[in-house]
């Protein structure tokens, strides 16, 4: 393989690996911007992946699969909202609970329904998302440099991949250019200001968590119905937490979220590429080092050594009207 090809393969893998991160981190952004911390991204994504894989297998339709993924993810999000907003419970505890409920029930239900050791049946072509070839991708593939870039990096991805990348500017636009976004950002910073402006704090926060549920649904569907053809036990493998790390790393800003997710996806792709390879000067880089790097970077950021990650000011605190 020549270097150009290696670069191309790595970048393609980067995109593939960062899509679920982008979707989940944007999901977390909506929730946390409204003042509700969510460490349950992993669980929602996992449950959605299972629901998507299961429904798509049973009904043979990718759309039904996606719908099921979203419905299940939203249901879990509403549990979190009920505990955190209505019951004013501890948001961290609630998130932890949702992760476990998702982790356990995907396996139990999967085994009960499909009896394939926690897998859902292999999805056929109709019931999963297919890579989309953009116009002229094949004809242009032979053009040096730009051709392969267009054919491999820009064309040839799943619909959900394009959706994920489209959600970045859309989220930015929603956040900074719509009434909803203005109120969402406000309620995560100073719910008192929102309340005195005659807007329901509860409603805004529920909406934020709802958006989170929907996007986690997409993230899960991507895992089980696009990049893989079916659900595998525990298939999120910590991606929800990497997404959380990316969200913090991005300081809760949509474009930064994409960049952070691409970075973390790139590190992941690089880890695969470098496995067992001898590099000049440093020698072999342990794959585990690459895997741990996103977390290490996030901790360093949290420690305030590279800029300061300031979460939404009212985050994690239930709103109680002051006397």
């Amino acid at each position, binding site marked *: 393989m020549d270097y150009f090809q290696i670069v191309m393969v790595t970048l393609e893998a980067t995109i593939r690996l960062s899509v679920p991160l982008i979707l989940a981190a944007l999901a977390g952004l909506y929730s946390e911007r409204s003042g509700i911390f969510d460490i349950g991204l992993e669980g929602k994504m996992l449950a959605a992946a299972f629901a998507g894989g299961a429904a798509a297998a049973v009904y043979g339709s990718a759309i039904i699969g996606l719908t099921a993924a979203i419905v299940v993810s939203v249901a879990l999000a509403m549990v979190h909202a009920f505990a955190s907003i209505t019951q004013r419970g501890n948001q961290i505890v609630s998130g932890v609970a949702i992760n476990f409920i998702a982790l356990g029930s995907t396996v139990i239900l999967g085994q009960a329904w499909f009896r394939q050791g926690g897998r859902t049946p292999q999805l056929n072509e109709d019931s999963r998302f297919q890579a989309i070839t953009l116009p002229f991708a094949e004809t242009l593939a032979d053009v040096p440099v730009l051709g392969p870039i267009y054919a491999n990096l820009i064309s040839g991805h799943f619909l959900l991949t394009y959706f994920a990348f489209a959600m970045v500017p859309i989220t930015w636009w929603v956040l900074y*250019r*719509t*009434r*909803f976004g*203005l*109120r969402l*950002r*406000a309620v995560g*910073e*100073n719910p*008192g*200001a*929102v*309340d*005195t*402006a*005659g*807007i329901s704090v509860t409603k805004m926060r529920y909406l934020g968590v709802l958006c989170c549920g929907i996007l986690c649904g997409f993230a899960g569907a991507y895992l089980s119905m696009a990049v893989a053809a079916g659900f595998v036990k525990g298939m999120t493998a910590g991606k929800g937490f990497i997404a959380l790390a990316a969200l913090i790393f991005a300081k809760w800003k949509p474009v930064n979220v994409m960049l952070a997710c691409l970075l973390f996806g790139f590190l992941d792709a690089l880890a695969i590429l470098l496995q067992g390879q001898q590099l000049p000067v440093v020698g072999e880089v342990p794959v585990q080092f690459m895997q741990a790097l996103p977390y290490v970077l996030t901790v360093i950021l949290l420690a305030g050594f590279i800029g300061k990650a300031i979460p939404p*000011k009212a985050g994690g605190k239930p709103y109680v*009207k002051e*006397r």
Partner: protein
Amino acid sequence: MSDLAIELRGIDKSFGPVHANKNINLSVSKGTIHGIIGENGAGKSTLMSILYGFYQADEGKILVNGEEITIRDPNVAIAAGIGMVHQHFMLVDNFTVLENVMLGAEENAILNRGIVNARAELKRLEDEYALEVDPDAVIEELPVGLQQRVEILKALYRGAEILILDEPTGVLTPAEADHLFRILEQLRDQGKTIILITHKLREIMAITDEVSVMRRGEMVATRKTSETNVEELAELMVGRRVLLRVEKGPSNPSDVKLSVDGLTVRDNRGVVMVDDVSLEVRAGEIVGIAGVAGNGQSELLQAITGIRQAEKGTVLLAGQPIDVTGDADPQDLRKRGLAHVPEDRHHMGLVLSFEENENAILGYHYDEEYLNGPMLKLDAVRSHAAQSAEKYDIRPPDVRLKTANFSGGNQQKIVLAREMERDPAVLVIGQPTRGVDVGAIEFIHKRIIEMRDAGKAVLLVSVELDEIRSLSDRILVMFAGRVVGERTPEATEGELGLLMAGVEEGQEAAQ
């Protein structure tokens, strides 16, 4: 059309056992600045919160422009043309001015055109009322005075004809306050109605047309400002209360035990709360600090006792310096004989979820008496607590009971017993009888006098003027972070009230 902007009839509101507003009647004429004055806890803020729809009155009617309306929530108030500038600004700190102004009044789901219109409208308001502020400035980067201006703009943007300002000058410098008054006068001249809630007489006299006085949940009087004077208002505000009689002989002050010099303290927002304060307390005397809450007393106490870092100044405890600008350690200060009964016993003086005996040693838990190496000597702790409980008549006499289950008076006795029973050289006390029943008040006052007679130096802070008058040997009055005067306990309430309300000495004669 009525010429009354607001009319309140028989407003009544209780929070549990607290009767915050008692049958309040109030009429505010259109195009006037109407002041509402009263001490802390007189019920001013509650009344205005009812008017703004934050709470519902238990009884009574609200008429806006002559029409009776039910204000269920702030939306109704906003629609009726009522705007409110809160004491603690309701602004989103990392938003721009424009975003804050628009929040909740955005026109459309998409901000595109709304932003353009809002910008134009904001510009128009700025021009019309001379309220300049950069619409793209981020709130947290603006000085407090400008932040307040944004609050006013927010209300005007929503079409407010009636503007309520709750203690607007609390966070302002005198120059900023003067500027605010000019703005308010201009707003009135352009036909707006303004309700100004304050405890500062100077402000009332300076800009209001009419003034209503509240005291202990009641509306006691309404006057035309031109027909009244500060003395009358001060008296109405404080009331002629029966002075609590405390048996007390003459004081016998000796050495200076606590000496504060040039102390300056900022609060968490960076606002100067204590401004170059100097004072001395001698052994065998009680120095009382009078003042309306929020004039720097809390920060003064916290700085002296090592809880809050001071910006500059020196404090000497029995002649030895306390590192108030560095890291003074409350534990070390206790060892050196500084006892502290904090103002906020619920959050600072006690841990409410602890057993009574555990609170009886809070801050003294390092004491050898209670320790056996790293272990607590529970027997010693509990017998100590039981002794104090008996001596201070703490009821119920159950040292294992959770502290939250004691009444306010008994909780306070737990703190007092802890701080008084260790023979301190200096005793610093904040709000000794806040939320305490009458029986316990007498007991607590007696104990404080006993401490004085035993030769302790006592620094007392209270917002209860009669408490200050009946206990103190000397009275210092704090206003806006400074000590504005010293009086003997013989000073009249009116005289002290004037000082507390920020009327400078010498100014009285001029009024």
